[in-house]
């Protein structure tokens, strides 16, 4: 199990492959569910050129750990990875990587789904988006639609 914040660019599929290469659960896990959040070039405003991801470092690590811990209590997970980007990102950059491994598929799928929703509503990260008109703080996370 691991969760961390990255100040530099993250490559989701390599991160997940690397996490898997360190596991000793081969033959035990039958399911892996992942979610990757990636920066878009639009939001409520068009033509977003970059974004600043601020966070509250001490609280962030505590919350990512807590989320992982809660997910493990709710579902029979064999491994779990949460990585969140901070700092300046541009469209196409990965912002968050969540991966869950379990023996049977519902645990991994449900935990992954739960983790992204909880993370979006609990973890102390904030986005400031920039376009030609300047920077604006994103005021709240949506329900995903």
């Amino acid at each position, binding site marked *: 199990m691991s969760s961390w914040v990255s100040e530099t660019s993250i490559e989701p599929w390599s991160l997940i492959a690397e996490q898997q290469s360190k596991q000793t659960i081969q033959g035990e896990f039958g399911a892996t569910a992942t979610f990757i*959040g990636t920066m878009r070039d639009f939001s409520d405003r068009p033509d977003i050129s970059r974004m600043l*991801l*601020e*966070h*509250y470092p*001490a*609280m962030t690590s*505590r919350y990512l750990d807590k989320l992982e811990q809660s997910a493990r209590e709710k579902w029979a997970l064999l491994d779990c990875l949460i990585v*969140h980007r901070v700092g300046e990102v541009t469209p196409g950059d990965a*912002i*968050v990587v969540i991966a869950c491994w379990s023996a049977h598929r519902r645990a991994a799928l449900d935990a992954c789904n739960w983790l*992204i929703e909880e*993370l*979006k*509503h*609990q*973890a*102390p*990260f*904030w*986005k*400031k988006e920039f376009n030609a008109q300047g920077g604006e*703080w*994103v*005021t*709240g*996370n949506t329900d995903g639609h």
Partner: protein
Amino acid sequence: MVSSNFKLAETINQMSIQVKFFASLREKVGHNDVELASAQNALEAWQLATNNMTAPENLLVAINLDYAKLESTLNDGDEVAFFPPVTGG
């Protein structure tokens, strides 16, 4: 002995509360961190650290890295943080 007791009393009366602001609130308030010598609860810390700025309706509060309320009591050494709704992920 007398001097030492005097110092102890001083320490008791004078708390140390770390106040932090993040994101849009950090910009609005104009600073990241403030140290307060005393504050009974998060609301008082907000008022002292912002010069009585009106607290936004969706204000979030964390005390020692856990979500808390404006009415939550503060103790010496506490860290209280104020921030807008989170928008990570």
